[in-house]
């Protein structure tokens, strides 16, 4: 059995090396051989070239501002839903997740249609036209991206707040601290580690984001590294060495920030879970304060969900784009065209669905194997598998794709996978493997080892234990992982844009190409359908994970 294990470990590491690490290494290699000769400083020339330097600073500025914006929105929300009576409304959590599940390129387009001159907002309230110029600049993009990232930081902060034991706060109050003083001196410092991790996560996600800058950024002439990489690799004249330089810099930035984040979490983590049963303190709000809290939540959700979804929906049913918001101008013809059997759009949708199905299934199988190999990452091979299999989640999607293209399109590559369906599957699997690994790993670590030992003591063979004990217990997380992978595969844009074989489209690339070249209404109708699917899936995941609590505890 040990042979199997060692052998499996070696195989897993080799596979991850080949699929994840080598492509990233090749980006670096390509960037330091700009014209076929070694130049170690080549990636650094982006700091010399004016345009590239501006792109870099644009990217960093965007990341910083989005962190600020997200904090501004998420902190009050997290406090309200962790520390007041409002926290019993668990259904709010599902609603709050929706902005994060909305693909940013679709959300941005919704915002553009809403806010642009003669847009939907202005058609409701003509005097709002004065707002438009203030929206179409960097701050508008920060707003859109902050609302998209909001759920992430909210979840992190709320969980951290829930863990701050009520007795600590009570102690402060007893010693005469005022509410704000307690918040400043007790709660904030205890939150710091979680917040820092969350903020860094938001930062890294923002600078890796492609969809919002590609749709909104282009509108306002704001260019960032991801959009420039895409430009240099897929519009003429292409410049692979510039693209790889940018990719190297983006990759290094992300890795540095992940490292900092792990340092912070190690240094500033306090023991907030003492084992003594501690209910978090609940602040009793006055009536007007409760009202204020509700208004805040509703206003936030109206902006984060209401605005983009209203625009998408309306744009998908408008007969004439220039016809305005009047009843006579509404029609379902776009849906009819979109869902016509054998149409280009239907094919794209089917491609997306079948691809997501295949990818989700493969990810669950491989992810489970990896997660079981990692166990509690005690030995160094386990730690390596852990690190490598989560790497694609750390690395910006566009960087990963560039690496994969370099390796699989290389003249020396003996496996002719590039430009085939298989290549798309491979790319997606690499992209989304971390999700299942994380889900299963978390679940596995909750299962007490005595259960396996009991199985073995009673004479169960390894596969018997796996089949009858481990897998049934892991089932909820396998399902959640499967659905999560399915959902994000449907909306994946940048990987699809760059790696799809010539004759293939997915719903995401279909939407994107309708924005660029085709009929925007059709694109929006497709957006409604794929986002609808996403929300159904999200509700499913929510249901499963709430059941999971019940079945394991």
């Amino acid at each position: 059995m040990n042979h199997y294990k060692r052998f499996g470990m070696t195989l897993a590491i080799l596979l991850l090396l080949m699929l994840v690490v080598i492509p990233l290494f090749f980006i670096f290699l390509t960037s330091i051989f700009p014209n076929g000769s070694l130049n170690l400083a080549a990636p650094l020339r982006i700091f010399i070239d004016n345009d590239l330097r501006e792109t870099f600073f644009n990217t960093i500025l965007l990341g910083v501002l989005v962190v600020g914006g997200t904090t501004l929105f998420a902190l009050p929300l997290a406090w309200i839903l962790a520390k007041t009576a409002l926290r019993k409304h668990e259904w709010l959590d599902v609603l709050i997740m929706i902005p994060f599940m909305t693909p940013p390129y679709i959300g941005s387009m919704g915002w553009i249609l809403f806010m642009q001159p003669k847009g939907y907002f202005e058609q409701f309230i003509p005097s709002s036209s004065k707002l438009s110029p203030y929206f179409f600049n960097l701050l508008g993009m920060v707003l859109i991206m902050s609302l998209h990232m909001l759920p992430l930081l909210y979840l992190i902060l709320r969980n951290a707040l829930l863990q701050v034991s009520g007795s600590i706060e009570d102690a402060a109050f007893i010693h005469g601290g005022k509410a704000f003083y307690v918040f400043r001196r007790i709660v904030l410092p205890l939150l710091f580690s979680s917040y820092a991790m969350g903020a860094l996560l938001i930062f890294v996600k923002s600078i890796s984001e492609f969809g919002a800058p590609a749709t909104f950024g282009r509108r306002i002439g704001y260019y960032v590294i991801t959009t420039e990489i895409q430009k240099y690799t897929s519009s003429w004249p292409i410049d692979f060495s510039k693209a790889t330089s940018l990719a190297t810099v983006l990759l290094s930035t992300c890795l540095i920030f992940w490292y900092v984040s792990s340092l912070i979490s190690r240094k500033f983590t306090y023991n907030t879970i003492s084992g003594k049963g501690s209910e978090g303190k609940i602040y009793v709000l006055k009536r007007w304060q409760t009202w204020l809290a509700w208004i805040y939540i509703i206003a936030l959700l109206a902006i984060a969900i209401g605005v983009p979804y209203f625009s998408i929906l309306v744009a998908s049913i408008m007969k004439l784009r220039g016809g305005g918001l009047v009843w006579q101008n509404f029609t379902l013809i776009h849906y009819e065209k979109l869902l016509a059997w054998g149409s280009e759009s239907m094919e794209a949708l089917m491609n997306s669905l079948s691809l997501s199905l295949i990818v989700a299934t493969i990810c669950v199988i491989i992810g489970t194997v990896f997660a079981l190999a990692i166990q509690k990452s005690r030995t160094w091979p386990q730690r390596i598998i852990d690190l490598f299999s989560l790497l694609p989640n750390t690395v910006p999607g566009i960087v990963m794709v560039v690496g994969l293209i370099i390796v699989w399109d290389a003249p020396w590559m003996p496996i002719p996978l590039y430009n085939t369906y298989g290549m798309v599957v491979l790319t997606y699997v690499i992209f989304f493997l971390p999700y299942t690994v994380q889900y299963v790993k978390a679940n596995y670590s909750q299962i007490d080892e005595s259960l396996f030992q009991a199985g073995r003591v009673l004479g169960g063979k390894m596969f018997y234990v796996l089949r009858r004990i481990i897998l049934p217990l892991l089932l909820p997380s396998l399902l959640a992982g499967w659905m999560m992978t399915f959902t994000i595969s449907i909306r994946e844009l940048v990987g699809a844009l760059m790696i799809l074989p010539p004759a293939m489209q997915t719903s995401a690339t279909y939407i994107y190409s309708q924005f660029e070249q085709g009929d925007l209404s059709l694109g929006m109708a497709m957006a409604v359908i794929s986002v609808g699917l996403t929300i159904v899936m999200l509700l499913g995941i929510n249901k499963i994970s709430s059941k999971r609590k019940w079945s394991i505890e």
Partner: protein
Amino acid sequence: MTLLNKRLKKRLIMVMALVASISIISCGTIPKPAPATAEVTLSGKLTVYSAGPNDLATNIQKGFEKKTGVQVEMFQGTTGKILARLEAEKAKPVADVVVLASLPSAQGLMKSGMTLPYKEAKNADKLFPQWSDQDGNYYSYSLSALGIAYNTKLVTNPPKDWTDLTKPEWKDQINIPDPALSGSAADFATGYLSVKGDSGWDLFKQLKSNGVLMAGANQEALDPVITGAKSMVIASVDYMTYQAKAKGEPVDLIYPAEGTVISPRPALITKTSNNVENAKAFMDYLLSDEVQKMVADAYLLPGRSDVKVQGRPSASEIPTLKVNSDWMIANQKSVIQKFTDIFKK
């Protein structure tokens, strides 16, 4: 120890065999080069990279499939994306036929030896001679003229000439398509500069200081004008505007009196094609009456001079600039570069 090693080796070999078989299975999806077939009965596949408009490309694909039974794999993208794809795939070319929306780009491909001449194409003699190659390296099966598209609700007194757009009344009201994506916008910029010389850049610089925004591909530039967010598109492709107008959208288009650039849409067969017979049949099909009618119905200008359009000026009636095509080919790349530098600032 050695026993263990042997076992390990055995297992490794098994795994390698497994990996190999998996990769062989996945290879099954790759189009195999079809054997050269007789001219009468065509079969197999054809890979076409085609610039928009999407509906036209799809109709042509379906029409050709129906007529010949050849299965067409079509990649639709902007000219910029197609060129990028061709360049990226240089080591392992895939495309058999390439349809672009920019003449200098096709000529560039010809000069770098990537085209396969097909002199005997049917109806080639009826094409406008100035936009097709005599040796049959490329044929411009359709054309579009660039104009100024405007929102009829917002612009009651449309401009007459390119330079009118630099007036302060249009500040921040105008879009221009990105020539790195839109082949026709690239043709406009290079064509205009080939006539005006270096002083031509003044127009673009003035446009930039008048708040003209470079707004992605053609549709991205035009859509805000349809919805009224912007007033005009400079260097807008005419067919897209006419299409929207026919639907009832509040847009129209003028061709400046000074003259404009006609952007031909050349089709070519790649030298690396594995399906030459199919590709030739496709080229014949593009020049056939059937497709030429589809072209006119899509509000493009037919590439054949004997096919007339109704209700709008035909290619010979549109005022054009006397462009220098040699200069255009030689300078396309640098013009795009400088153009985007100006508009990105």
